[in-house]
């Protein structure tokens, strides 16, 4: 049975009529038109669907939509904009830390969680935090540069 589920997405109050078991990913993409959480595996293995739920990096492909009722969801578009960029977005752009970019949402959102918790992470901390995110194109080297660049800017 569909239910009305109330969410707060990128600072805006929203509601969806959906199967409470439906993954948050489909609510965000199909009901609310959020384009950045992306389907990659549906198995919580790749991170392409990552959003922040109350600031914590969360895999929306395996999170039932009803579980985030009343919580604050942030997507990549809510993290920053060209006018008000998040340091990570600026750094990924400046380092051209991407190939196809399909996975980029997962990297930036997971790194955002890390950098909000840890202002000056070590290389090991970054590697550990990002190890569960897949980039099939292999843009990892540039992504490491980008995260370190953003960390530097945020701790400056």
């Amino acid at each position, binding site marked *: 049975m569909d239910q009305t589920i109330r969410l707060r997405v990128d600072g805006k109050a929203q509601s969806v009529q959906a199967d409470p078991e439906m993954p948050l990913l489909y609510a965000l993409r199909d009901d609310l038109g959020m384009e950045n959480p992306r389907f990659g595996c549906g198995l919580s293995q790749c991170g392409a669907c990552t959003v922040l739920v109350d600031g914590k990096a969360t895999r929306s492909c395996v999170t039932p939509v009803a579980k985030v009722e009343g919580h604050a969801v942030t997507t990549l578009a809510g993290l920053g904009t060209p006018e008000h960029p998040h340091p990570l977005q600026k750094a990924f*752009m400046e380092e051209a830390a991407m190939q196809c970019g399909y996975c980029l949402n997962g990297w930036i959102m997971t790194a955002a969680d890390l950098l909000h918790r840890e202002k000056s992470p070590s290389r090991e901390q970054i590697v550990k935090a990002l*190890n569960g995110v897949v980039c099939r194109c*292999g843009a990892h080297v540039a992504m490491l540069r980008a995260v370190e660049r953003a960390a530097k800017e945020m701790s400056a």
Partner: protein
Amino acid sequence: MTKRQDAQVSTEPRMGVSRLRRSEFLAAGTAALAVVALPQGGTRSFAMAADERTTTLGSWLRMWPDGTVEVFTDKVEVGMGVATGLGQFVADELDVPFSRIKMMLGDTDFTVAAGGVGGSNSTFMGNFALRNAAAQMRRILVNEASARMGIPADKLTVSDGVIHPAGDTSKSIKYTDIVAALFPSPTFPLRGDGFTTDIDVPAKPKDFTQYKLAGSSVPRLDAPGKAYGHYPYVVNVKLPGMMHGRMIYPPAIGATVQSVDEASIHGIGDARVVRVGSFVGVVATREWHAVKAARALKVTWSAPSTTLPAMDKLADYMWAQQPFKKTAAPPQGNVDAALASGAYEAKYFWPFQTHANMDPGCSVVDVRPGAVTVWSGTQKTHALRQGIAKLLKVPPEQVRVVWVSDAGSYGRGGLEESAAAAAYLSHAVGRPVRVQSMRADNTQWGNKAPAIVGRLSAKVQNGSIVAFDSNLRQFNGNEIFSQPSAPGTFIAAQLAGVPNDGGTFEYGIYGAASGKYEIPNTRATAELIAPFAPSGSPLRTAHLRDPQGPGVTFIIESFIDELAAQAKADAVAFRVKHLRDQRHIDAIQAAAKAANWETRPSATAKRTNAAGELIGRGVAFATRGPTIVATVAEVAVNPKTGKVRVPRIVAAQDCGFIVNPKALQGTIEANVIQSLSRSIYEEVTFNDHTVTSKDWRTYPVAHMRDVPAEVKVVMINRPSIRPGGAGEPTSRTTAAAIGNAIYDATGVRMRTAPFTPKNVLAALTAQSRA
């Protein structure tokens, strides 16, 4: 469609352009439109008919009264920055600021069919026609200004889109004031076909050395949209009335549908079943309902059509087969005579691998009477148009394929399968249908790169290779044609009963591919063995990034390393000794220098690090088309677990003139990591009836923890040599460099890839027994 705008690489400007499609343009005919040159690329297929050997200039470039220059190309952006690079060429030729350039990528109603993306060709050959067209556009505009100003054209120059006498800006005419001179758009003959397609114009493009933008790190056009999240991806295409579909894949090779229990999805929204032969799909208004229905649908399948060989005996199976096709490179000298006195021999194995695209593949197809539109991330829009037209049995003129970025494609993987499935589903339900494949649909059922085995014999005398005999055997590299122009190349169509009618025969052959060493007696043969099943196989084979390249180079460059060890020679010096072309020597020496390569034979002493790992370094060299690569890898091997770490990789590449150094660096780094992944992790697994690699756990790839602490890229710029390809070449040498480093570290030769703990331990154990 996506509502957001990306100023540069976007579907949105293209949708704006669609108001200027040929028929509408002819009806409109207003002064504002009069400057628009019409593309005639619409009816050309990959193989062009004789009467399609011309195009208008406007098929390639259009200049608008506001100064915008639209660049039409079927080279789509698969993530390496080629759209930016091609735009740099056009801006330089026209002498306009880069900000004026809009790249219009891959739309069969607008772009000229030129083979699409493939073979690292987008920059390499994709620049020919665009540079010529831009040079011709500049010439037309300068001639017009010359006539108006009464100044000879050869006395005029152009700065930022303003034509003026050289060294004198007091008199000038802007391009934007005379764009009408471009209309009616002149027609020029075409040269070449497919990737080599070029336009024959009187104007001559500038030398690479005269370029200002090309050669510099212009920021990638796609970077802001990707970082801020407004870059258009095909997964975001939404149409009014669109439904969501999923395809049901068989449980086994060659299995066909016996019955479908439609009641099994009753109550899952409005989900319903579509069946065409053994193609089965579900469609629903809500995506979640389609996903649930695909999981719930009960289908009864026949038994598999064949039994697959034991995976750990695949090499034996391949050697036991009778090849159905053979080829040979031109021999040199007399190998048999040279090897008669005793040869050094080795056998190698390279596994099946797969694309495992980050997005399993998404397409939206809208089948209407007389008009079919396909939104897809295909590398080859024009070929896909042919394939979908034949699948739906409609004339290709009625099909429009619009490229919108999907995840990285790396050849003919699984992305286009969603287009075929969506075409069947949209045709059945009469609504636009979006199909996004599920993870297993892609990893388990996408096309595979063929397994390769090699048998090599050689003789080393006085420190030199005097004879080299290579025999490579593999599954067909192009069983599924690289161009999706035939419907039987889609698994959906195969299940619907369409035979695979597209393939050609493709080998990885040493000598033809990368045999650059000077050896007096050589023989190189290659053989193809039959696929496991003619149809409906999850192990059907197709192009994966640098088709055959990593496998063949692993085999050959590991064996060359064995010969260097035989000669007790340094692996770099041994290769240099057998090379003649100075560019080849420069590349390998550049890699060695950047790696602080210590000149010594390999594996002469055990070296360990503080963690007790055995450490070593290896090198590999190859060419791919005009591009030259050399890679040095350093490894640390845990002798107890067999785990291989790669703390450092140095990759040197000479691809001629470097168009965009930063984009090239990113491309090479990504090649290094992806090929590192293929070297140490990737092997498609299977049981006796199907592929068991289904997701990221069962087909593991490199993660952040596997990334070398240092990846050093050495880019050798040759400004007077036309740019070669860069999308694939550095994928070629990584496995061999790592394997050779493992030998240096352990004294054990890896003749089986990937270098998983299991395979490394097996090699170490075999050595200690011997």
